[in-house]
């Protein structure tokens, strides 16, 4: 009986957490213009989404979101990995301080990060638009990459870099042939994390996108909602995004579990 209550508590909690998403998902399969009206099962919104039945604004917003996320994730993976290797080679206090400094931007509220970046771009006179959004996304994604690469470096046998040098590798060859393969799983997880964070972002983007008409998905939906009523096609779109993010998260988790199991076998 006790177990039953414990179980139902868990399910209730999960239901509350996922209810909004499930509602969007369910109502993406109906034609009603207003969310909440069920007019029978239909995949019309999906077909309309993919056959150009929606405004060009939405599609270009989706495109912007994806390209920005890809660029930001790639660049922050590169920067974050290099930074992690640097931090790993530091000793004592210096390392603690840098690790701490790396953690602050992650704890900082997005809105503050957004305003700060906005002020920065204005003060150095950078025209706000696509470039500034990419730069801003790189800035807030990089610490997460550092965080996901660091554990791989810590697990690594510290002598393998020296072993590579000893066998005739130049420092660059040792990095490429030994260190990178060792931290690659962390880099991939970091990339996926950065990608999802970038897609997800609203607060930073709204402050750095300028007024040249650049929209990402999140800012587009916000503007759309304010104009009066959500475009119905946003329902299937949200569902697709949710499923994609869910898949990515499952991949990250499976990967890290597999890595942990591999470590145990050694």
């Amino acid at each position, binding site marked *: 009986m006790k177990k039953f209550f414990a179980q139902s508590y868990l399910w209730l909690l999960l239901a509350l957490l996922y209810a909004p998403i499930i509602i969007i998902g369910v109502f993406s399969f109906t034609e009603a213009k207003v969310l909440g009206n069920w007019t029978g099962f239909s995949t019309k919104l999906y077909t309309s989404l993919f056959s150009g039945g929606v405004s060009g604004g939405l599609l270009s917003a989706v495109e912007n979101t994806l390209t920005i996320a890809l660029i930001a994730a790639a660049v922050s993976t590169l920067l974050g990995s290099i930074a992690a290797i640097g931090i790993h080679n530091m000793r004592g206090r210096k390392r603690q301080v840098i690790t701490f400094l790396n953690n602050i931007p992650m704890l900082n509220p997005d809105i503050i990060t957004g305003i700060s970046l906005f002020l920065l771009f204005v003060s150095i006179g950078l025209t706000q638009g696509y470039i500034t959004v990419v730069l801003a996304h790189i800035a807030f994604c990089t610490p997460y990459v550092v965080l996901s690469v660091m554990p791989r470096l810590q697990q690594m*046998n510290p*002598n*393998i870099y*020296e*072993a*590579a*040098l*000893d*066998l*005739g*590798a*130049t*420092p660059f*060859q*040792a990095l490429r*042939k*030994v260190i990178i*393969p*060792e931290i690659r799983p962390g880099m991939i997880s970091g990339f996926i994390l950065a990608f999802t964070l970038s897609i997800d972002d609203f607060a930073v983007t709204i402050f750095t996108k300028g007024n040249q008409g650049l929209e990402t998905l999140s800012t587009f939906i916000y503007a759309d909602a304010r104009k009066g009523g959500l475009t119905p096609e946003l329902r299937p779109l949200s569902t697709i995004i949710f499923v994609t993010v869910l898949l990515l998260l499952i991949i990250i988790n499976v990967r890290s579990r597999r890595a942990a199991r*591999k470590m145990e*076998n*050694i």
Partner: protein
Amino acid sequence: MTNQNNCIIKIEHLSKAFGDKVVLDDINLDIRRGEFVTLLGPSGCGKTTLLRMIAGFLKADSGVIAMEGTDISDTPPHRRPLNTVFQRYALFPHLNVYDNIAFGLKLNKVPSAEIDSRVRKALKMVSMTDYEDRDVNSLSGGQQQRVAIARAIVNRPKVLLLDEPLAALDLKMRKDMQMELKQMHQELGITFIYVTHDQEEALTLSDTVVVMSDGKIQQIGTPIDIYNEPVNSFVADFIGESNILNATMIRDREVEFIGHTFECVDEGFGINAPVDVVVRPEDIYIIANAENAKFTGEVKSCIFKGVHYEMFVETDKGYELMLQDYNAFEVGSTVGMFIKPSDIHVMQKERTCNTFEGKMTSPTTVQILGAEFECGECGLQAGEEVYVSVNFDRVELLDNKEDGTVMGEVEFILYKGNRYHLTVLTDEGEKVYVDTNDIWDKGDIVGISVAAADLHITKRV
């Protein structure tokens, strides 16, 4: 100069400090071509640091490492014609056995057919044939170490460096690998520089043993020399079991210790000179009949050690000796003992009392060891520079560290038959030597104090 050509690595005046701590202090070492050299010492003695400098992972503060006559001090590790076997193997986890071993050859652009034959030969050498495709993480510790050795020797280095390669293996495996390494050394003919803290391993494997302690080389010699003729009490204590005793060299070939006079084979120490004597436990003959013996004693303990029994005997003059014999003697029984003259090894005493450099701070106080000591009237004025000497048995060690004039940590303990000779490291990094009957443990923090009358002050000129 055949000797010059024979020398493959020459180390001159090599020093290194990490912050304030000196880890290598003016090391000079010649390593001959084809030799099996072991750097032996307790942890923290600088042996691994020295090896890492030869490999090129660390830079010396001063001094030169020359290989075949050329200075390689500034050569980065990847350009040095030597290879290392690391303590924790350091295999590349993302590569299989074959690719691990081929790593160095591929970097050197060796043709792939040659790589293939050399890798297979190396695997055969370490008895790992047919393991090419295995994932290195699936191998046991011993197998990983074999792959690590193969990965190093496949490059045909001029010198192979081994950093405690067997430390992580169990005893049986270690013994097997020792024999294999020795055989491999003979077959390959390359110079091995081997680091270990295991004295037995060093004696078994090496042509030459370099005993190190405190960043200094204590003794260089063949295993037999090191065991039979240790130059000081540290080496005698570190290599094998030993009785180290205070002694007086009465004249050539005659030495007095544990209250008896013995005939010995050493000469040239002078008359009535204080010396240290080393007697190995297996060199003291023990008989049940006490009457015809050189000296007698009472058996205090007797422990079976496999091949022999290890006994502690209190002699007729109150000294405690360690003995090893194939026969057991009953605890409490009186036994007779004698020692052959050739089994008594006489060593110069490193020091006979503590000597510190200091400065008078007033006519009755002196500054030594970073603190002020009362010293009584000695006719010297404040500011004069002095030497202060204190006998070993006049230094007082106190349980309560605040009670002493300075604080120190017990660093090294030597039992001398009837008392302990301790080395105490003060906070300022100076060493104070103490003779005491009290039992202290290594690492104990103690207070050090000296009575005013026991400070002997002489003016420094």
